[in-house]
């Protein structure tokens, strides 16, 4: 699964599980903070999102990984899921 597919799946989880408005989720940039001044998720929403992502991507996220850094943005979440689901995407020049 590539980054774009993961991003689309996360956005869908935000709508389905956290009941955010589709338009708001669509307007999110990949750099918008998910906590605090950005999306403003609270600790219960963070856990709900995490659990839904675990189910969606068949991954396990450890308590210790649930840091503010992980929820810095969609990008950081995408990176974690990519790391847990498979090898990194090849760069423009390819990675062996």
């Amino acid at each position, binding site marked *: 699964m590539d980054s774009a597919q993961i991003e689309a799946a996360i956005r869908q989880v935000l709508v389905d599980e956290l*009941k955010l408005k589709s338009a708001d989720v669509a307007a999110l940039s990949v750099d918008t903070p998910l906590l605090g001044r950005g999306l403003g998720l609270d600790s219960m929403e963070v*856990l709900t999102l995490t659990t839904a992502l675990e189910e969606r991507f068949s*991954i*396990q996220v450890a308590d210790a990984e649930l840091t503010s850094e992980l929820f810095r943005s969609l990008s950081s979440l995408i990176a974690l899921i990519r790391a847990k689901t498979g090898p990194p995407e090849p760069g423009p020049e390819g990675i062996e």
Partner: protein
Amino acid sequence: MKTIADILPEVSARDPNQTALVEGDTRLSYGELCARAQALGRTLRELGIETGSRVALLLPNGIDFVTAYFGIAAAGAIIVPLNDGYQETELEYFTRLCDISLLVTSRRHEELCRRVLAGGRSECRPFFMEGWVFEPGKGTRADVNWVDAENPVMFQFSSGSTGTPKRIARRHHNLLFELESFVRTLGIRTDDRFLGVAPFSHVNGLMRSMMTSMFAGATLYPLERFERQRVAEVIERERITIMIAVPFMFGMLAKSRFDPVPDFSTLRLCVSASAPMPKNLNLQFHGKFGRFVRQLYGSTETGTISVNLTDDPSDSLESVGLPIRGVSVDVLSDSGDSVPADEMGELVVRSPAAIAGYEDLPEVNRESFRDGYFLTGDLGRKDASGYLYLLGRKKFFINKGGYKINPQEIEQLLEQHPAVEEVAVVGVPTQFEDEKVKAVVVKKSDVGTEELVEFCRGKIADFKIPATIEFRDSLPKSSTGKVRKKLLI
């Protein structure tokens, strides 16, 4: 046992070496905990705390919370547990409402205390547990004679249907009755091991985990916050026998991926309170861990009302069970008459653990207390066997993970923003049968979601900050001008 301050001395006298608390690598026996609480009580007296002084407690679950709770009780003061996530506006409000003399807290809140308590706005002083040095032998059981058994021992708050939170003064005999009844109903033993993960600042974690465990002489494993793997690890490693929490926590454990699935076979009781436990999540929890979650019903005004302890709960998962010992529940029609079995009405409760009324609110008391019963505002039914089912509520508040939020509190805050013309706050249902906070705003001038959320931040606890803000040109209203909130969800 006459007062709450007698609990630790009596339990400790029976077996001082019995383990009372385990937090990480720290284990405290009842003898040690009792000595610490009594020493802290003496320290508080030396600081000027007197019988009936109000002392707030702003700490997370842990040994310090338990020590401070019983230390304040030993000093004869009234304990005011506050949510550890409270911010400036809430802390200032409760400090004034309860005329708090001392705030027992941790250095983590030092900056918050400086903002709220400094500048002569309050007579309240902070007391940081990290700075307190336990002196063995300081304070004795005789000190608890400071305590007057008829006086309030704890102030709690009810979100209620209207206005600001109502102060509830629970007296020693209220709490002791509830504890005695609950321990007997659940058959709690000294070899039980409680998981203390529901916040002790809230009635559920406080009374049904922390206080029940201490009253019964069992062992309590407090956890500062809910972390899925940590909770599972502690249950499995420490062979926890009783977990009393909220639906969100059980639901998260049921839905999380564990590899391997932890062994919860030592759990003999899983009890959920503060919000309805959805049947599908209960079945999921049972499918994964082999245990059903029992539903419990209670309120801050009455204490624990009922719990579902039927042998095979699979046919009655949605029931909150039978009233606990000494508590009676009736179901009334709008005209105030008892309704037949299985018919819906308002649940009313009579209990020696209940308060007789709110302080200084005669009009509210006339509406909420009648013929010795507390009118809960909850709609429900009682089946032919006496099992209770909750069906809804008459009073309007938002239930977020077990915390009852008064929408008016958030509306009043947002109305202070210069760009807000009008606002209504509602709860939007989530998959855990609790709700998230939604604000619907009519703008006076240009403003965005981010600015309004930021306006709330630091003034109210994070769990009260609207998860969604919707902007409309006007609010839907009835002919009498009342906002039709059902149209906003």
